[in-house]
């Protein structure tokens, strides 16, 4: 925003101050996320920049915390690093097990949330849907209700139904938590959906299923994928429900991090954090690309 030529000196001063304030707020937003990246390469077990790090001395940096992620929990971490060592790591290393669990739980709950959520969004965006706002309010509520309450309720429910400590229990719970995101993104894509396209397909003789897969689906696909990514991240990041209803077997990345932070926080946590930041950068870029593609497909000009 350029400063107009008629601005008084006071207004000019204010404009510069305003920019500085905005810069500081952006710094507040982003600095905590970026600060963990260099610190995760610290050779010392400290959470601050050592003098050697500040002098960019290669001696001050190391990959030892990333190595810990591999070896922590292994049966023979000191063995020579051959195929047997990697097999050991794959089977026993805690962080690798947690990653496998997180991905399994995330994938299935995302699938469930996306399929059910997309169908429901198609129904909800029809004008003739009965009790639309009430049903919408119910379906969005898992996002609003505090996680601790959901977790408490699920704890009672699962201990009664025998789902406690099972993968199925966590997958169902995470699907419930991901559903609001799918509904919100898919209904947003369906706003401004040109229904004459489906009518045209029908008048040309396409069966409803053909119309759905050939006309509707490609148009709403970007929204569906964004919704799925939101649902996946929700599951991938969720710790409260896991703490309450998961058994010892279902150790996920966030739960492992939670334990790490509570017990003794070591720079290995920062190494995990760095990897997760990179994952979130990748996810964010994907969602942004999808959003632009969706806007182009629907002929909506970006705001």
């Amino acid at each position: 925003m350029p400063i107009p030529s008629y601005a008084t000196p006071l207004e000019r001063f204010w404009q510069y101050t305003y920019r500085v304030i905005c810069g500081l707020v952006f710094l507040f937003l982003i600095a905590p996320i970026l600060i963990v990246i260099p610190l995760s390469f610290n050779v010392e077990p400290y959470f601050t920049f050592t003098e050697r790090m500040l002098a960019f001395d290669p001696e001050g940096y190391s990959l030892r915390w990333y190595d810990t992620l591999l070896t922590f929990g292994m049966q023979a971490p000191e063995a020579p690093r051959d195929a047997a060592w990697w097999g050991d790591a794959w089977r026993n290393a805690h962080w690798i097990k947690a990653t496998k669990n997180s991905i399994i739980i995330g994938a299935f709950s995302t699938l469930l949330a996306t399929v059910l959520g997309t169908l429901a969004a198609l129904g909800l965006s029809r004008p003739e849907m009965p009790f639309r706002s009430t049903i919408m309010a119910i379906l969005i509520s898992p996002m609003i209700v505090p996680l601790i309450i959901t977790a408490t309720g699920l704890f009672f429910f699962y201990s009664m139904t025998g789902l406690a400590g099972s993968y199925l229990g966590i997958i169902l719970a995470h699907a419930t938590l991901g559903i609001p995101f799918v509904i919100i993104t898919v209904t947003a894509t369906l706003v401004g959906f040109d229904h004459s396209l489906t009518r045209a397909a029908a008048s040309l003789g396409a069966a409803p299923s053909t119309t759905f897969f050939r006309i509707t689906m490609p148009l709403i696909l970007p929204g569906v994928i964004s919704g799925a990514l939101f649902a996946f991240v929700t599951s991938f990041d969720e710790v409260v429900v896991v703490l309450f209803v998961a058994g010892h077997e279902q150790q996920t990345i966030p739960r492992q991090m939670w334990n790490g932070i509570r017990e003794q926080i070591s720079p290995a946590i920062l190494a995990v954090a760095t990897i997760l930041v990179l994952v979130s950068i990748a996810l964010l870029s994907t969602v942004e690309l999808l959003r632009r593609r969706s806007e182009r497909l629907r002929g909506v000009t970006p705001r």
Partner: protein
Amino acid sequence: MSATDPLTTADGLPLKRALMRAQRSARWRAFVLVAPLLLFVVVTFLVPIGQMLHRSVHNPAFPANMPALTEWFRATPAGTSPDDRAFAALAADLKQAAANRTVAIVGTRINYDLPGTRSLFTATGRRAAALAPPFRTALLEADARWGDPALWAAMRNASSAYTPGFYLSALDLTRGNDGTIERVPEQRRVYVPLFLRTFGLSAAITGLCLLLAFPIAHMLATLPLRWSNLLMILVLLPFWTSLLVRTTSWIVLLQQQGVINSTLVALGILGDDGRLTMIYNQTGTVIAMTHVLLPFMVLPLYSVMRTINPAYVRAARSLGATSWTAFRRIYLPQTVPGIGAGALLVFILAVGYYITPALVGGASGQLISNLIAFHMQDSLNWSLAAALSALLLGAVVILYWLYDRLIGIDNMKLG
């Protein structure tokens, strides 16, 4: 065809009926699409929460394991001092409970209302088989506390499975020995102050978020799209980053040997022994939660500010308003829907936060959620946890309803 004849379709049906039939099938089709998800959410979400609400008023531990004494309580009015029949019933129940190994369950139940009584039950339970008539003397000999009127009042309260007692505890109320409701002594009030602290801190966090979000949302809304999209990434990246990662970062930044303190010491602003305590207290909770919730304030503000026509402010300026007046009288009122949406959303999310306060809050930065978790995992007073959850849920539902009325759930946007 006369004017009074109803309009009909080609196959002779009255048009009104044909239309209604078509609309009904359209409604039905729409509902069938939503039904599977609705069923899913009801089973995996609403039923568990309903069950939790039930548990907050229902605790059968005492009547299920102490049937004879429960029967005596039912037969006598409140405030009756225990007679010989009562002691006989108590002894019979204790014997039976000891045989079933359920004395500890009963003791725990009474312990919720009268701390320190669990050991009374378990100790007497171990010797219950040896109790012989007359039971009053036998029990009072075993432990004089069996004659305590407060104990009998607590047992009477616990004798009905459905009880408002957990809500009373959750509101720092208690029943006196004669059954009247009164507030607990000042130093034992825990929950009401914690609810107040939760709402207070949430309000402070909401205010801080608004203060920080307003300038950057304004900047994002007025910059050319190319630049604002780039800066938007700085808002969206935290939104997509794991909550635990962001909390860890704040621990790294704020702790005594952390980045901020070390920098201040290195710059000579602080002495090495004067390091600031910014974490494991309320300050830590407020800073970290403001950071976590800031995107939820920026996004609604931004989407409202984008639609504000800059011509209005320019018109105000050209009519002689100072820039402050133009902002206050013209710009600010137009942003109110965004402020409302963002503030409500942030407040709703803040009230129920658990992870961040648990990790960076220390003792003074804990919120009500942390106490619910404590009662679920450590003290194992599940009914009290359920009652606290129900109260928190009530607050959140009211705020959610308000959000739906004022802003509409349909207008919730993500990025």
